[in-house]
């Protein structure tokens, strides 16, 4: 089973760096945070272009309103806070004042999924993707590492409309390099295989790849699909994976209700009913702990993924 190195930087750092790179090219790019500009890697941008980064204080709803006002005046706004405060506390402001008028605002949820780890349930947010996916016209992405985060932000730099990007608190495993390509609405095959397709996003992609290695040792060829763009989901790629392998496993550190697993189930249920299993967080609240330990405890271990794959293969 291959191993993946822990990155030195977090996807939050990468977010800030990518926004700064965009801001150097595009004078309409603005950064905004709710006492989170430093947490989101915007410190350098704030130093380099202080008039283009707003720290609005611990007031997420007002941050959304201000972002809407700036975007309605022609600016391209990149902002964020911790995922529960973006996807929950200020959700209505995002939905009604940013997404409804389809404004160019990208909001990042740092500490999305389980990545708030030792902060506990108050700061974790396995629900963010399900919630943000339900907002009309909103792009939802969950990059796996810093290289992927930069590619996502670059792509969103020329996208018309709102988007939500889930980021992590601590460093993730390095899966990709600077050649990583991200296209809105596109998935990519990371490993081909004929027996089962594993669809994964974000911080668990490396575990999906490791599970494929474990399965190979048992003679099972798993396809691994990078579905870091959860909305719009690449339906064609999902259906092609189902067609080729005949069974699907989804993996994410999200609730199994309505996130990548839900999105894949919707597509498969309507177009090509296929045996599938959603590996993710069940209908429960989690707890404090280290990210790896939490993933293992809440059903996202490499073994859990491999077992899910074998279970769906048996249902073919």
């Amino acid at each position, binding site marked *: 089973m291959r191993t993946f190195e822990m990155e030195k930087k977090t996807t939050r750092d990468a977010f800030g760096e990518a926004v700064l790179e965009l801001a150097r090219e595009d004078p309409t790019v603005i950064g905004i945070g709710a006492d989170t500009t430093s947490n989101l890697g915007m410190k350098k941008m704030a130093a380099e272009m202080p008039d283009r980064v707003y720290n609005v204080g611990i007031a997420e709803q007002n941050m959304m309103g201000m972002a809407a006002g700036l975007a309605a*005046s022609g600016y391209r706004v990149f902002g964020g806070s911790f995922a529960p405060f973006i996807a929950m506390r200020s959700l209505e402001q995002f939905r009604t004042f940013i997404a409804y008028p389809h404004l160019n605002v990208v909001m990042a949820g740092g500490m999305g999924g389980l990545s708030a780890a030792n902060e506990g349930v108050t700061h974790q947010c396995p629900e963010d993707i399900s919630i943000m996916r339900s907002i009309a016209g909103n792009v939802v992405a969950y990059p796996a590492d810093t290289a992927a985060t930069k590619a996502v932000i670059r792509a969103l730099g020329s996208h018309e409309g709102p988007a939500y990007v889930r980021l992590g608190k601590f460093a993730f495993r390095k899966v990709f390099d600077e050649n990583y390509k991200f296209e809105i609405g596109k998935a990519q095959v990371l490993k081909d295989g004929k027996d089962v397709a594993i669809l994964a996003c974000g911080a668990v992609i490396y575990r999906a790849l490791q599970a494929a290695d474990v399965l190979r040792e048992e003679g099972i060829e798993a396809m691994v699909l990078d579905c870091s763009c959860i909305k719009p989901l690449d339906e064609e790629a999902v259906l092609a994976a189902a067609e080729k392998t005949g069974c699907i496993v989804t993996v994410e550190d999200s609730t199994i209700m309505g996130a990548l697993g839900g999105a894949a189930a919707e597509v498969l249920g309507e177009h090509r009913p296929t045996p599938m299993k959603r590996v993710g967080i069940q209908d429960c609240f989690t707890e404090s702990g280290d990210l790896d330990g939490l993933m293992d405890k809440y059903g996202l271990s490499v073994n859990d993924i491999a077992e899910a794959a074998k279970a769906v293969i048996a249902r073919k």
Partner: protein
Amino acid sequence: MQEELKRLKKMAVQIRRDMIEATAHGQGGGIHIGPALSAADIAAALYFKIMEVDPKEPYWPKRDRFILSKGHAYAVLYAALAEKGFFPREELLTMRAINSRLQGHPSYKKAPGVDMTSGSLGNGLGCGLGIALAMKKQGTAHRKVYVMLGDGECQEGMVWEAALAAPHFGADNLAVIIDHNHYQSCGVLDEILPLYPLEDKWKAFGWHVMEMNGHDMSDIVSKLTVAKEFSGRPVCVIAHTVKGKGISFMEHNNAWHNGRCREEQYAEAMKELDAQEAAIDAGRL
């Protein structure tokens, strides 16, 4: 000036006529007429004296902006925009009905002249602050963003997030007008959750505060002119108003928070408005 005030007062009567027409004959069901009537004189002053906007170019970047944060008073905004020429007066009868540009609450990019989506209470000031800061960047800070809040709306927490932020960010091109009509959906504001001392609260948050009679056109024009010219701090104008103002049976009557006029009520209301116009012409009002 007297002629100008007369013109503005008559415009306010016309805006009220438009709203009563929609309340009686609109295709979209009930209209929040009471909270729209309390804002009619202020809307007339804003759109026909204070603000610079261009109906031919609704998204002109150098325009003044108006955000009706108390978006349930949509009827007054739509009527003012129609009178200003953003869309035909007849279209007012479609407000809230299916296929209309005039959504149940104002929607940015749908109806020409609407500068920001609103209606979910508490949000307009934050949006207005964002626009005000954008104007500063774009060199149009000589223009102003006017945000009308309901008094009940000031019970929303986000109002105070934005109120705290605006002076800090130097948004002296932002003006709040509070339509202080003393009622909210369920009843009397003072009984549900009082705001006093409202003036002191805004002052404490760093705003320049003024009060005005929201139905005295001379006072409205005078105070809003000061607000327009004021610099150094954002401005808050507390407008003392009457819910349902202008139609006797609607005034101070919270049953008209949202309603529909029967034909006899429509006739009575129009008669009163005609009388008001005659009185304005005769210099008695």
